[in-house]
């Protein structure tokens, strides 16, 4: 069953067509990778799904319901969470608070409730705290709870972004270059984490990644973008041997080796 579908979506910036007529269907509970050279339109594609840009053409459906052109916060409420290529944490806030911000849409405390600190609100806050902590434990950041997000090592920051995204209870999780800046050991851990997330929480995962080892290991489907267009799709083995992909992305010279 399809969880998220993009139907021929297009985005222009000035004269440049960043994404052109791309249609992709993401199956529920699958792990899908979107790859392609830098500047191919992958992040723009993510930005359209998460509402940061609204597409100039085409439709996006989540769970058969359209989300085309909705504001990012509504899309988040509907169940799409993401991480960012150039990490966007709430730098001055503590690690735990970062995750608690992710719970925003699931907290119901209103103005007066907060002001008078009703038992309901207190219980909710406490619950949120524990859940945030359990998520941090889940991604392996339990020791960093009170640190400022900006003081975390690079790899840990990426994991924190994932924990924060999970806190929104998403149906779909978009990871934008989650392994960038990680060493092989961290990358392996991340790979396990991603698989575990999918298995434990039944979340549909879509990732943009340059680390082919990771991509090939965990993705069930791979889509290749180049110059805003979809040039290939298939299972890892197909992609690995697709001449178009090799030419556009891996380099023509790769053929000669």
């Amino acid at each position, binding site marked *: 069953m399809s969880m998220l579908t993009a139907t021929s979506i297009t985005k222009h910036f000035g004269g440049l067509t960043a994404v052109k007529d791309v249609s992709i269907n993401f199956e529920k509970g699958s792990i899908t990778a979107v790859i392609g050279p*830098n*500047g191919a339109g992958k992040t723009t594609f993510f930005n359209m799904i998460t509402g940061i840009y609204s597409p100039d053409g085409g439709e996006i459906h989540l769970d058969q319901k359209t989300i085309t052109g909705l504001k990012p916060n509504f899309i988040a409420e509907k169940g799409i969470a993401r991480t960012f290529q150039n990490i966007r944490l709430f730098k001055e806030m503590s690690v735990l608070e970062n995750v608690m911000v992710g719970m925003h849409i699931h907290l119901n405390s209103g103005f007066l409730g907060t002001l008078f600190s009703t038992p309901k609100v207190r219980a909710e806050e406490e619950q949120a705290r524990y859940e945030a902590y359990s998520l941090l434990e889940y991604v392996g950041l339990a020791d960093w709870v009170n640190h400022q997000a900006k003081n975390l090592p*690079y790899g840990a920051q990426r994991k924190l972004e994932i924990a924060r995204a999970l806190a929104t209870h998403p149906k779909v999780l978009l990871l934008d270059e989650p*392994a960038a800046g990680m*060493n092989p050991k961290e990358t392996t851990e991340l790979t396990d984490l991603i698989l575990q997330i999918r298995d434990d929480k039944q979340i549909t995962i879509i990732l943009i990644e*340059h680390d082919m080892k990771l991509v090939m290991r965990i993705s069930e489907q791979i889509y290749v973008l180049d110059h805003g267009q979809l040039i290939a799709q298939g299972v890892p083995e197909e992609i*690995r041997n697709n001449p178009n992909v090799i*030419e*556009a992305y891996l380099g023509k010279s790769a053929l000669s080796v």
Partner: protein
Amino acid sequence: MSLLQLQSIRSFYGQIQALHDISLHVGQGEIVTLIGSNGAGKSTTLKAICGQVKTTGKILFEGNEIQSHPPHTIAELGIAHVPEGRRIFPGLTVKENLEMGAFQVKDKKQITERMERVFQYFPRVKERLSQKGGTMSGGEQQMLAIGRGLMMNPKILLLDEPSMGLAPVVVEQIFEIIQKLNQTGMTILLVEQNAYQALQIADRGYVIQTGSIALQDHADALLGNEQIREAYLA
């Protein structure tokens, strides 16, 4: 003697260490490439060389320590950096962009001569002289960016991901020009994600992983390396 030598360079972004003891050297007339995944520290290394990020350790250029110099004096020494994402001045015309490359040059005639030389490599740039930089296509911008670097008449050219976001045809062109430049004696330090293409034209290569040099060898050797194949080719 190496033209450029880095000895145990460390860099921090805030409290996060981006470079761990990077040491490398580039000899006169070489093309050396620095490959690695996104966020590994390739660009940071280039920024360290041209004084854009603070570092500890030594950077020697023609035998002189330059690590404490501000960027503009490093440029004066003859190090031209063509930054990632081209970074041409979008509001300036193509001609003004080129003139900025030759900012240190006072002699008008010399500027014209250098410009002519740039046009030899990039005839397309000449056609667009009075156009605003920001209105050009990606490939043209990359050519302008390299051309602007050449206006400095540098001793070494640092290229940061020149193929990024460009059509394969254009990438081929750019790499051809890089090779051509090298044949005229230009020393080049090339940072690339497109590892294979970079190694094709390079003499030597360094593989950088989470801020440290993981591997270094002749380009041919790296091309044949199984690990590299796996990490960067799939």
